Each structure stands twice: as C-alpha cells, then as structure tokens.
C-alpha cells in the first residue's frame, strides 16, 4: 500500500526558503572573502564540555561542533574561514533542539569578538527579507545597530536576583531561561556579552577583568541564535581548562573522553582569533516564521 507523506509535502515551501537562505549565507561570506571549508564530522574526540554529550560512532564521536579542526586551520594560516555542517548532541530534543542539527561556524584571525558582533549585524541584515523580521507577531527591526547588554546588566535589568547570586545558588539556568531570555531581541536583536570565566571554557579572559571572558550570545525574538568567543590561544591554559572540564564530567559519572592532542599541540601557533557558532535551523525558523524546529527540516528523528 502506498503512503503519501502529507506532512513532508507540506514542508516544501519552507524547504525552498531554507535552500535560498543557505545560498545567501554562502554568498555573504564569499563576498567578505571567507573561505568555505569542510572538516571531518566523525572525529576521535570533541572538546570536553560539561553539559554537551557527544554521540559515539565506533571508536570515534560525531562532532558536537567543528571548532577543533576550524582552529587548526586558523593556526595553519587560514585567515577567514566558514563552514556549514551537521553537528550531533546526545539527548537534545525540544521545540528548538534537534540531536542532529545544522551549524554555521565562522572564524577570523587577527580579530576579536567585537568584529564578530558586526558580522552578525551584517549577516542578519543581509538575510532579512525587509527592514524587519516578523516572527510570531513580533516585529524585530534589523536596520540599526543591535542592542548590547552584558550578562550582568541583563540580570540586573530583568531577573529578581543578581548574576553572581544565581551562580552561587545554582539557579543560573532557571533565571536566565525564565526571566531574561524572553526579553531579549524583541524590538531589535540583542547581544549578551561578557560571561563569567566559569561559563566560557574556550574563550579568552578579558585583559582588564580576570573574572570575565570575551564571549557573547545573539538573541532574536527570545531565541538564542549564536554563541561566540574571542578564542583562547594559550595552549597550557586550554589544556588545564579541558582537564578541569573533563574532571567535572567524570564527577557526574559521564563517559571519559581523550584530550584532543593535535589541536592542543597546534593551538599556540594560532594568531589572536575569534569564532562563532550559529544554529542554522533556528535562524531559518525566525526567517520563515516557524514556531518549531521540526517545520524547517525535512525529517526529524521521530520521522525516520
């Protein structure tokens, strides 16, 4: 008996838009003299991160992000690179999460996170159909500069508790999710920047402030779209942070991962650089006014 997949057929208009958006993203970066690269998606180990679990693939893992290979390219003298690829994160499934999703990462050498903030403005303006993005009835103006708030300012403006207190009380995520995220990127996109060093395992610590690292997140319509760093290029410090992260993973009973040797060996050759990871499926949700991630991909895990 023939089954006609009406749900899949109904996605056609959005999948056409998706293909156009991907082509526009490539055009934007090529125009800015970025080199499109491809790196292996199945790798011996990922950067150890406490709250990201890779999916094993025989004696390797599927990448949770292409960052390690991208930084090895920076260290080998590739100045501006971008990649559109699939990434995998175990057990992440929700209205805005898929365990297999599409990531855009781009990196600039001889640069820092300030330049990436400008890239974000340029990219979003390039992709928005008009001067605003209309998402679920909200009108987000993308013509001007984005709103900039430090994480601490965002807490003092929107949360009933200070950032530091929320970390000490172990309720940072609950407050950030309930009180702050819904307020971000509502009239124009918002950049939340300067995270406590404990929340930025791969980011460079600020020169004038040892307690904060140069990391930012981009929000549009309350949805987190991208996460960026001025990259840490001190190999010894990176090794220490990886070991600390790995120890915390083991304390939580999570499987051990090896440290990425070639990456650590080549990191010292990397010039001061900045890199950013942007969730393509979520960006397409915003640009096509879809209220779940399921609507912007042909197949979800449950459909297979």
């Amino acid at each position, binding site marked *: 008996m023939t089954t006609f997949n009406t749900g899949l057929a109904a996605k056609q208009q959005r999948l056409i838009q998706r293909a156009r958006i991907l082509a526009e993203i490539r055009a934007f970066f090529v125009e800015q003299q970025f080199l499109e690269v491809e790196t292996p998606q199945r790798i011996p180990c990922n950067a150890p*991160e406490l*709250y*990201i679990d890779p999916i094993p693939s025989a004696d390797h893992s599927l990448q949770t992000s292409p960052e390690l290979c991208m930084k090895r390219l920076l260290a080998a003298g590739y100045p501006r690179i971008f990649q559109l690829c699939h990434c995998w994160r175990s*057990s*992440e*499934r*929700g*209205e*805005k*999460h898929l365990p297999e999703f599409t990531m855009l990462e781009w990196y600039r050498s001889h640069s820092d996170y300030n330049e990436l903030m400008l890239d974000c403005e340029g990219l979003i303006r390039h992709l928005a159909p008009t001067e605003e993005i209309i998402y679920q009835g909200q009108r987000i103006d993308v013509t001007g500069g984005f709103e900039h708030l430090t*994480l601490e300012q965002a807490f003092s403006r929107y949360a009933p508790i200070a950032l530091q207190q929320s970390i000490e009380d172990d309720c*940072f*995520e*609950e407050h*950030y*999710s*309930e009180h702050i*995220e819904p307020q971000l990127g509502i009239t124009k996109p918002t950049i939340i920047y300067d*995270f406590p060093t404990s*929340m930025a395992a791969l980011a460079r610590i600020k020169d004038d402030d040892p307690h904060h690292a140069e990391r930012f*997140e981009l929000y549009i319509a309350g949805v*987190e779209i991208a*996460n960026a760093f001025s990259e840490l290029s001190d190999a010894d410090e990176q090794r220490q942070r990886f070991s600390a992260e790995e120890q915390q993973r083991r304390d939580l009973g999570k499987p051990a991962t090896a440290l990425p040797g070639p990456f650590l060996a080549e990191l010292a050759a990397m010039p001061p650089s900045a890199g950013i990871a942007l969730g393509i499926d979520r960006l397409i949700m915003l640009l096509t006014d879809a209220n779940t991630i399921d609507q912007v991909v042909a197949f979800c895990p449950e459909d297979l």
Partner: protein
Amino acid sequence: MYSCSDLKKGLKIMIDGEPHVIVGFDFTKPGKGQALYKCKLRNMINGSLFVRTYRSGENFPPAPLEERDMQYLYQDDTGYVFMDTKTYDQISLSEDTLADDKYFLVDNMEVKILMFDELGIGITLPIFVNLRVTKSEPWVKGDTAAGNNKPATVETGFTLQVPSFVDEGVLIQIDTRTGDYVTRVKE
C-alpha cells in the same frame, strides 16, 4: 523509573503522590549550561494545570494506571456507578471526571475505566452510541443560515445539530469522540 530524557508529551508520571500527564514539553539549555526540561502538567485526578521545570538527574516513577472493563449501571447521589465485568466490584465516577461523556452513557453500556488504585479517573466510551431524539423543532424552510441542519436534544439532555429530516422520537447514532451526528438508526 523515567529520567528527564524520557519526558515527552503524553507521558504519565507520579508527582507528589498523584498521577499527572505531560500536556506540553520543551527542552532548553540556557547559556550553554545545564539542560532544563519544562513540562506543562495536568493532574489526572483534579484536572489542574501547571508548569514545572526539571534538571537532568531527576527521576519520575511511572503512574500506576490500569484500564478495566466495566459496565454502566446507574446514576445516584455518589455519581455515576459502574461495575467491573470480571470482579463485579462497583465504583463511582463524579460528574466532573466524566464531563461531556456523561451525555453518552446508556444503561449496561460497556466502557473502559482508567483506574489509579481504587479511584476511577477517566473513561473510554464506545465510539458510537445510539440515543433517541426527545426534542427537535420542525425545520424552518428557507432558513439558509443554518444550512440543512437544526438543533435537537436527545434523551440524556445532550444537544447537537442534526439534519432537517430527523424528527422527535427517532433513534440516531452519535460519535462520542466529537459529539457529532452520524446517522439515523433503522429500527
């Protein structure tokens, strides 16, 4: 035991000693930190709705629910009385629990009752029920706003739209899932 990664819409779990069904679910990871599992829950005993957020590491016992075959007997002061067709035990369901399903009960109807221990908390009716029309105005010719339908009331007090040719005293079939008219029953 269920863990956070098992949570999804429709899952029935025990919270504070009472069965709850997840009616809305989302997964978030604010600030690349700990995963949060946001659940909209309905208490299956009293129907109350509320939102709770959990972190990984929490566990949830499955709700010990059982469906039992029962027969509808009668209505009395305690509510609507059903008898287990295997054990002959009798239980009573409140009007609130039955909601609109009370209109589709006829004597000796075979139903499934969802049990939490000895407490009946839900009912599954046969898909179709036959009920007699007790009141229906004659169709006003030319009333095009209503199409060819008109309101009718059946023996249990339930009111629905029926075709113009259905008169008082006629037996009709109703879909218990939607409350819609299906067909006239030949007697």
